[in-house]
Structure formats: C-alpha cells, structure tokens
C-alpha cells in the first residue's frame, strides 16, 4: 500500500457523528466499564452515610464509624482510577469524572454524616464576615485577623449584594469546592511540564489525596492556597524562562544505571529541561498577565499573613534557577508585602514584635514544637498522629524516588525541585506555633505530588507503546492505601472537630442574651497556650462575647477554683462545657475517660451554680448573684483601624508609592519591551535610593510604634 499525501487522507475522513466525539471515544468499552464501577463505588460510598452516628466516634476519628460498604466503595473508585491510568490511551472524561468523585468522597463526607458544618475555626471566620457585614469596617484592635481583611470583606460584600443569606451552607460546601478549584491551576501548572498524561492525572490524584491537612475549611488560608497555585500557574505558563540551547526532542538514551560515575556524568552533561518552552504571547498580553499576577499577589497580601511569603519564596527560587523571566519581581513583591505589614497591619505587630520575630532562626525549636508538641493524648489517638507523620514522610520519599527516576532519564526538573524546597524556609523564619509543619507540607504538596507521580510514570512525553499495565499493581496499591489513610489523617480529630447541633443551639442561646455583653469561660487543658475552644465560637457578635480560657480541673470534683473565677468575673458571666471540648480534653490532653459526664454532674450539684442551658451536647452555667452585685461590662477591643503616629505615615506612604511606581514600571517595561537597557537602567538607579529610604521608614515605624 502506498502512502497517500496527508491532505488526501484528511479529505477522506468522514464527518464524525456526535457519538464519535472525544467524549465518547473508540473503543467505547473502557469508558462504560470504568464508568459503571465508579458510579457503583460512589453509590456504595454515599448510600450508607445517612445512618452514621458521629456521636460514637473514638480516638481514630471518623473511620471508626464509617460503614465497611463505604470503604469498599471508595476502594473500588480508587482501583478504577488506577485502571484508567494504565489503559493504552487517555480517557479524559472518565479520569476527570472519577477524580471529581474521589474529591467529593474525601472532602464532602462530613456533609452527609454531620448535620452542621465541621471545624470550629470556620465559625470564627464566619463571625469576622458577620462583623464587617454588620458594621461596615474591620477592627484590628478586636482581633489580629482583621489586619488582613480582604477575604472577610469580599465574602461580606458578596453576602450583602446577594441578599444577606446565611453562611452555613457556604461553610458546609466550601472545602470540596475549594479543593476542586485547586485542580484548575494545577492543570495549568502541569501543562508546562514534559510529562506523560499518566503522570499528570496521577499527580492530580495524589495532590487531592495528599491534601489531608484540613486547611481547606472556610478561611482566608484556603482561599489563599488557591491564589498561590494561580500565581504559580501564571508565572510558569507565561513567564518561565526559555531554556538555553534546549535540544528539540528529549533524548532517547537508555537509562544509564545507578553508578556514581554515571550520576556524575548525568549531572554535568546537558540535561533535558523538565518543562516545555513558555507559550507565545504578545507584549500586550504579557502586560495584561503581569497585571493579573500582581493583582493576585496584592489580593493575597490583603487577605492572609503567610501565603504572600510563600509566593515570594517560590518566585525568588524560580528566578534563582533561571526559570522566571521577570527577574525584578521578587523585589517588587517584597516591597508590596512589607508596605502592607508596615502600614496596614500595624495593629497586628505593634506590641507583639518579640512574638513575631522571637522564633526567627530558631529552626530546631520550630521543628520540635511542630512535630513533637502535639504528641500527647490517648494511645488510640496517637495512631492518628503516626499516620499523619507517615503520610508526609511517604509522600516525600515517593517524590525523591520520582526525582531519581526522572534524573536517570536525563531530565532536569529544577522547577519542581525549587517549588518543593522553598516552603521549607518557613521553618527557619516564621513564628506560627505548632501548625507550621502542616503548612510547610501543604505548600510542598503540589510539586511533591507531581514528582511522586513521576516515580510511576517518568516518561517525558506520551508514549504510544510501552507496558503501562506493569504499573497497575503498585499504582492501585498506593492509591487505595492513601485513600483509606486519608480518612484517618484528615478526620482523626473528628470527635472534637465536628459541630453537634446542640452546641450551635447553646451559642444561639448566648447570642440571644448578649446585648449587655457576656464573659464566657471555657475549659482548656492549658489556658496560656491552648486558647482555641473546640466549639462553634465567635460566629456572631464577636465584640460582645469575651471568650476566657480557664484551666479544666484534672479531677472533676475540684471545682472551687473554677467557681471562684466565675464569681470574680461578675454578673453576665457564664461557663460553657461542650461534648467536643470534653472529647478534646480526654483525647488530646489525657484527661480521664468519662471526665465530662462527671464534671457536669458535680457542677450541677455545686451550691450557687445555676444551669441556664443544657442539652446532651452542651451545658451553660452561671452563678446566683446576690442582688446589687456590681456588673462589670466586658471590655470590647478597639473598633476601627489602629492609628499609627502621623508624621512617619505621610512621608512613608509617599516613598512607598514612588517606589512601587518605579518598580512596577520597570517590570512592565521588561515583559512588554524585552528589557531595553535605556529604560531599565535609569529605573533601576532611581529605585535604589527609594528602596533605602523605604527600608529606613519601615525600621523607623517598627521602632517608633512598638
């Protein structure tokens, strides 16, 4: 048979009917088979969830009450996804649908098992939104969160223009929505990588399954994690550096063994870049994209305290490894975030400098408090911590393995290595208490997920032949293990992170009686450190209820101190005890089993103590006050923005404005006009004295205000 010219061939292709569109590909049976298994698995997972009783959780959390049927269902879905990865060609609709199903199962399971949205802090965030929605201003004096009000302000704005709806459904569906949304920038990021479709789909799966950290509740940081990925996607897609002298096609060399000599040689020989070249774009498009990039960064700066630093670190790393063309961007970003912290968030740091920078450089201290600080509590609950640690370690090991396999294919994945390493800087610099390890893991995750996927599928392009089925067993085993372990790692604290309806009712009772202000005592295992109650707190009227942590007596009978404190607090003071807080005390702080029940019984029997509200989930006590007891009003924090001294503010703002103008102009000229020296050099020179002056202003403000 002779080869026909390509145009002749094209003419002969008949017009395809709709059932032959890519959504319904040839051969049709893999789609139908995998689709059936996935739908069956989803049904098996979701159907029995209605009968789950979340009040009977033990120290392992949600998995202790999940029906076996549900676990079998999700296992079937994970296996089906692995099968989809090993087919000779990609079926995007099937893989995408399966992945979406998995994300729903993992992140929306509590929507079906619990009557109210989970996680105490999400209620607190809703309280900040409610405050802005009601008063029309933020209040940095009331809470440090208000120094970064972008997220609260936006939600309050949307809430008001859509007709003042309740936020409870938003709280409930937020995690699964934001986790789905994160897949979009991840897809854009992965489009720039030289990798097979199998690696990319597996990476998306690992990214979702690895995200057990639980930072995706309704909060500024979950929104900012999405912004972080968007930032990376724009940077890598349009501003990644054109690699110098890249070979046109990846080398088809055989894998060269593990010997030191070959490793050495491969390190210094010409590696093939792990990224494809930047997409072509016109100067106007690049200007527009840079504006969006800066907008994303400013959005993040105004709404979260940690994420902008991660963005700067990632950008700096990419510039350093020559994979970012906007070389002046890190300086511009640093000036933006410093300006915000110095001028707009003054209420946060004035008076707290030692708390902020005290841990700077205290690497081992931060590591220890992150890793070991939380390891107390019941033996059963400690398994959850073991699973989490193992999860993180396994992920990093898989990523390292993937890196080695890619290296043997002489591929240079410096972008992924950079993105994986830069978040670790936070250990050395940020003062964020015991949570920093979780956050570092979260920001390592996108790059680590891709590298871990390379361990199974290291190919640099879509290969036609090969034997993908030999990877089926390892991939399926890994997928199933990680999915099941996810439920332990993510929902291991569910006994005290859930919100029973009775607790919400208790708080609604308080909100109905807080016109004159309320002091609310709650039971903490260590009031000096542990000041976040496990209850739906602060979700309304945040300026009216003062939450005061009090030491929970280890022996539930010794209530004298507690009652004395309540008496000293005066009329309008209450003490609350909730089932979740009691579970927290026993699981995390080793209080005796049955502590809560005995505490409630003893408290009710104490003379002078009056129970004003009680249901199985929560009890509120107060005291019988003799008539004429003077009422001490709770002191609400200062409302409205904190006002720093005037003379420095005006001068400082002028310097900041000029500096931003010069630096922004410099970067726009760089991306639009290809860095003409005649323009760039004067701007660089002009920016230097301004930069020095700005640093001076910032230091001066720190000294004067604090």
């Amino acid at each position: 048979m002779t080869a026909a010219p390509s145009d002749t061939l094209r003419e002969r292709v008949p017009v395809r009917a709709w059932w032959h569109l890519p959504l319904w590909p040839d051969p049709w049976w893999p789609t139908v088979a995998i689709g059936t298994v996935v739908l069956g698995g989803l049904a098996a997972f979701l159907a029995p969830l209605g009968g789950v009783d979340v009040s009977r959780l033990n120290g392992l959390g949600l998995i202790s009450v999940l029906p076996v049927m549900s676990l079998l269902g999700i296992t079937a879905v994970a296996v089906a996804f692995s099968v989809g990865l090993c087919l000779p060609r990609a079926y995007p609709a099937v893989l995408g649908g399966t992945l979406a199903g998995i994300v729903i199962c993992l992140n929306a399971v509590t929507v079906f098992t619990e009557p109210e949205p989970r996680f105490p802090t999400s209620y607190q965030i809703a309280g900040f939104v409610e405050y802005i929605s009601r008063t029309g201003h933020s209040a940095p004096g009331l809470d440090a969160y208000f120094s970064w009000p972008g997220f609260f302000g936006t939600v309050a704005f949307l809430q008001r223009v859509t007709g003042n709806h309740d936020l409870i459904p938003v709280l409930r569906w937020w995690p699964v929505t934001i986790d789905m949304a994160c897949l979009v920038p991840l897809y854009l990021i992965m489009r720039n990588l030289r990798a097979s479709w199998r690696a990319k789909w597996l990476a998306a799966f690992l990214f979702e399954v690895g995200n057990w950290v639980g930072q995706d509740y309704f909060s500024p940081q979950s929104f900012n994690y999405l912004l972080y990925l968007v930032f990376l996607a724009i940077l890598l897609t349009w501003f990644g550096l054109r690699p110098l002298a890249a070979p046109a096609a990846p080398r088809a060399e055989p894998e060269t063994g593990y010997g030191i000599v070959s490793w050495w040689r491969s390190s210094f020989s010409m590696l093939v870049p792990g990224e494809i070249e930047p997409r072509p774009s016109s100067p106007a498009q690049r200007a527009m994209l840079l504006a969006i990039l800066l907008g994303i960064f400013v959005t993040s700066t105004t709404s979260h305290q940690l994420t902008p630093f991660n963005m700067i670190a990632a950008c700096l790393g990419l510039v350093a490894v020559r994979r970012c063309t906007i070389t002046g961007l890190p300086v511009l970003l640093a000036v933006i975030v410093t300006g915000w912290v110095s001028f707009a968030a003054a209420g946060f740091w004035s008076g707290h400098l030692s708390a902020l920078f005290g841990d700077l450089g205290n690497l081992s201290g931060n590591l220890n408090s992150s890793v070991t600080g939380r390891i107390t509590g019941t033996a059963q609950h400690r398994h959850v911590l073991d699973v989490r640690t193992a999860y993180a370690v396994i992920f990093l090991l898989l990523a390292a393995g993937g890196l080695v396999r890619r290296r043997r294919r002489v591929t240079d994945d410096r972008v992924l290595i950079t993105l994986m390493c830069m978040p670790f800087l936070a250990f050395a610099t940020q003062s964020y208490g015991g949570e920093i390890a979780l956050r570092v893991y979260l920001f390592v995750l996108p790059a680590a997920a891709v590298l871990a996927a390379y361990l199974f599928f290291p190919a640099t392009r879509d290969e036609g032949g090969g034997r993908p089925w030999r990877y089926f067993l390892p991939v399926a085993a890994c997928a199933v293990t990680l999915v099941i372990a996810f439920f332990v790692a993510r929902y291991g604290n569910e006994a005290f992170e859930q919100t029973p309806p009775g607790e919400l009712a208790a708080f609604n009772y308080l909100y109905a009686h807080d016109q004159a202000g309320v002091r609310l005592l709650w039971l903490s295992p260590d009031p000096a450190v542990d000041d976040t109650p496990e209850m739906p707190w602060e979700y309304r009227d945040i300026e009216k209820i003062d939450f005061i942590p009090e030491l929970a007596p280890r022996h539930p009978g010794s209530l004298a101190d507690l009652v004395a404190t309540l008496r000293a607090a005066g009329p309008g003071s209450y003490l609350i005890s909730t089932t979740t807080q009691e579970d927290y005390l026993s699981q995390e702080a080793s209080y005796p089993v049955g502590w809560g029940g005995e505490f409630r019984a003893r408290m009710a029997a104490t003379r002078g103590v009056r129970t004003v509200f009680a249901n199985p989930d929560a009890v509120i006590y107060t005291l019988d006050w003799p008539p004429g007891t003077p009422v001490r009003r709770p002191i609400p924090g200062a409302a409205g923005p904190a006002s720093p001294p005037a003379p420095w503010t005006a001068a400082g703002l002028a310097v900041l404005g000029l500096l931003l103008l010069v630096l922004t102009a410099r970067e726009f000229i760089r991306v639009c006009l290809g860095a003409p020296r005649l323009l760039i050099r004067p701007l660089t020179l002009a920016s230097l004295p301004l930069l020095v002056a700005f640093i001076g202003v910032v230091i001066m403000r720190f000294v004067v205000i604090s």
Partner: protein
Amino acid sequence: MRCMPMTPQRWLACAVIAAGLIGVGLALAGSSSPLRAPLVMLALAAGPAMAVAGLLRGLDTPARIFAACAAMIVINVLVAEIMLAAGAWSPDGGLVAVVVITALLGVVQLPPVRSMASRHAPKWRAAVRLERR
C-alpha cells in the same frame, strides 16, 4: 459602522450580560426575589471574566478562561478591600464599581477603539525599536 456577525458565543455573551444586568437591578432595588442571588453572582463572576477574556484574545482557550477568572477574583476582592480600607463600605456601591470596571474593560474592546489602537500601534513599535538601537 459594520454590524458584527452574531456567532453562538456572542449570543451567549449577550444573554449573560442581560441576566447580569437584571441581577444588578434586583440587588440595587433591594428585591428579595430568589433569582437575585444567582443573577448577582453571575454579574460579579461572569461580567469581569468575560471582559478580561476579551482582552486576552490569542491565548489558547483554557489559559484564557483561567486568566480571566483570576482577574475576576482580583477585581472583586480589591473592590471590597478598597471600600474597607477607605472607610467607605457600601455593598451597592461596590456592585456598581464592579459593573463600571467591567464596562470600562468592555469599552476598550469596541471596534472604534480597537481600530484606533491598531492604527497607532506601528508608530509605538517603531519608537521602541528606535530606542533599542
């Protein structure tokens, strides 16, 4: 002026704009209609995104939609943030601000403005080339 041919995409855009404007009207009138929330969200989400997508002609479709959505988030958050920082909190004012920004982004894409820009573009390019030398 020559009339633009109406492709299905353009009909869809017109429908979205009309629905969004109805939503904005309902919100400004303080209506309690169940249509208010979805239509206002459509106006705040699809409006700026479509306007920015129009400015990003030439990018491939997924990238274009993605960048436009990113811009949409930025516009909404910064409008809310500026209202807070300036002490001028007004949800209705913010809604109008987003609509005005969208309209401005839309106006620069109208055929007269674009033809003017394309007329002046060569001069600009020549100027830059001169400078590089």
